[in-house]
């Protein structure tokens, strides 16, 4: 029946949009760091996962709700991020192009092994009562977690773009990304500005970690898949604006769910990767990039 097909299709697209919000949440931090420091933070996925496991620890040992645990999780990751940039990356950036990449890779490896020791390789989830529920939207049933993810993504994107567009530090980060020397001539301490940018990126990672954990099961190796998604979003969405990255996430999410709908669940990621390749080939600056 045509109307059933239509409802199924609508269901798929809406799922894709909501999922895309989560993907955007994962990528926003990477977009900020890549845009400013031109640094490919290959530890980004594992740092998100650090946020996930932190929330998991708070939940299993202290009984704290994962979203509530963000009150501690966000500052914690903010400080870790500030430290990584100020004391590790800044020294590496002076030495060579590859050094920061290697350091990030090292951090990634350390984190993966750390999580394995602490939490075992078994798959875990941030299982809360609300994470498993679904809600109805005009005849379609959607997982509640997906809706939370989307709302979280919109909030983070909004906060980030307000920060970048309206505050002195935000503008300094944007300026330093476009011309580092000119920024220095304005009296901007680019070392400190970079540290803040990285710290903010980590704060968003803490957020993303919690919502990822609420939505999908995770293992110590999940960081890699998060990183791949983040890259996919940044490539498709382009750099230069938080909104562009957000829309990139949506496009990716919808591509995945539609791919799954038409070609089956095993092919859905294939569609995503093909999309990424297509954008790289035809419009390398991304669909919404500058």
């Amino acid at each position, binding site marked *: 029946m045509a109307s059933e097909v239509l409802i199924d299709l609508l269901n798929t697209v809406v799922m894709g949009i909501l999922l895309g919000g989560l993907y955007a949440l994962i990528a926003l931090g990477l977009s900020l760091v890549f845009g400013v420091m031109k640094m490919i933070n290959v530890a980004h996925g594992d740092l998100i996962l650090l946020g996930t496991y932190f929330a998991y620890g708070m939940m299993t040992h202290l009984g704290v709700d994962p979203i509530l645990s963000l009150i501690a999780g966000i500052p914690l990751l903010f400080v870790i991020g500030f430290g990584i940039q100020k004391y590790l990356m800044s020294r590496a950036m002076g030495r060579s192009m590859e050094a920061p990449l290697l350091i990030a890779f090292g951090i990634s490896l350390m984190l993966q092994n750390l999580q394995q020791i602490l939490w075992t390789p078994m798959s875990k989830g941030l299982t809360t009562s609300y994470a498993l529920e679904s809600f109805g939207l005009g005849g379609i049933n959607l997982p509640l977690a997906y809706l939370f993810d989307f709302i979280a993504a919109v909030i983070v994107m909004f906060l980030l773009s307000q920060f970048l567009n309206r505050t*002195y530090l935000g*503008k*300094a980060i*944007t*300026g330093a990304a*476009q*011309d580092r*020397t*000119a*920024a*220095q*001539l*304005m*009296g*901007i*301490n680019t070392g400190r500005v970079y540290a803040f940018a990285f710290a903010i990126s980590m704060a968003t990672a803490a957020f993303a970690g919690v919502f990822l954990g609420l939505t999908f099961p995770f293992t110590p190796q999940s960081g890699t898949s998060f990183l791949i998604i983040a890259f996919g979003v940044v490539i498709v969405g382009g750099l*230069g604006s938080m909104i562009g990255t957000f829309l990139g996430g949506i496009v990716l999410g919808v591509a995945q769910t539609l791919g799954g709908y038409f070609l089956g669940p095993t092919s859905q990621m294939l569609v995503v990767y093909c999309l990424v390749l297509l954008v790289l080939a035809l419009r390398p600056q991304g669909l919404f990039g*500058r």
Partner: protein
Amino acid sequence: MNEGAQLSVTSIDVFYGGFQAIHEVSLKVQSGEIVALVGANGAGKSTLLNTISGLIQPAKGRIEFEGESITAMDPSQIVALGISQVPQGRRIFPDMTVRDNLVLGSYNRNARFKKEQNFEMVYNLFPILKERKKQLAKTLSGGEQQMLALGRGLMSSPKLMLLDEMSLGLAPIIIGKVYKALRKIRKRGITILFIEQSVRRSLEEADRAYIIEAGRVVLSGKVADLREEEEIKKAYFGI
């Protein structure tokens, strides 16, 4: 000897890796003066300005501003003290609005609370910037970008402005406008140290000048005196 000098550079050597760009250069600038640095491309003039701004550290020698040593300071401290550079090629932030470019000019804490005042001053000097304040900087013409770069430099409430080749790539009419604005800036008591391609214009606008060749000061003095120098006439006017 350097009494009263607002800026004094004493015997500095500056290296780029293994290459010595500046040899034993000394100069001084009095408060309110306008001094030109003249010389061929690659003579080290930009390097000199970048060293004063703190982007490069001299290997030897001293730089003092209003009696305080700034030789080892980093760029953000130097801007805070009141030295502002308008770099070669303008280097405005291309994907930011005209207004945001100006806002970033007032980034240093001493200038932040004067932001609105300085905005008014800059918009009065360059009304076109007010007109285009919401436009992205990259959409401005060359001359407008130069005015933006100058305006941005003014937003930090500087006492001394370092200008690197403002007329690069600009039509003569525009260059005239820019230098007219510069004269107004001078009237506010801001000291100027500038690099200018055209020797003629340098000598027209400046009180004093330093001629730089291969990283050394080969000649310096009041412009009126320099005009008479045979070497200048020969070297730069082919007479």
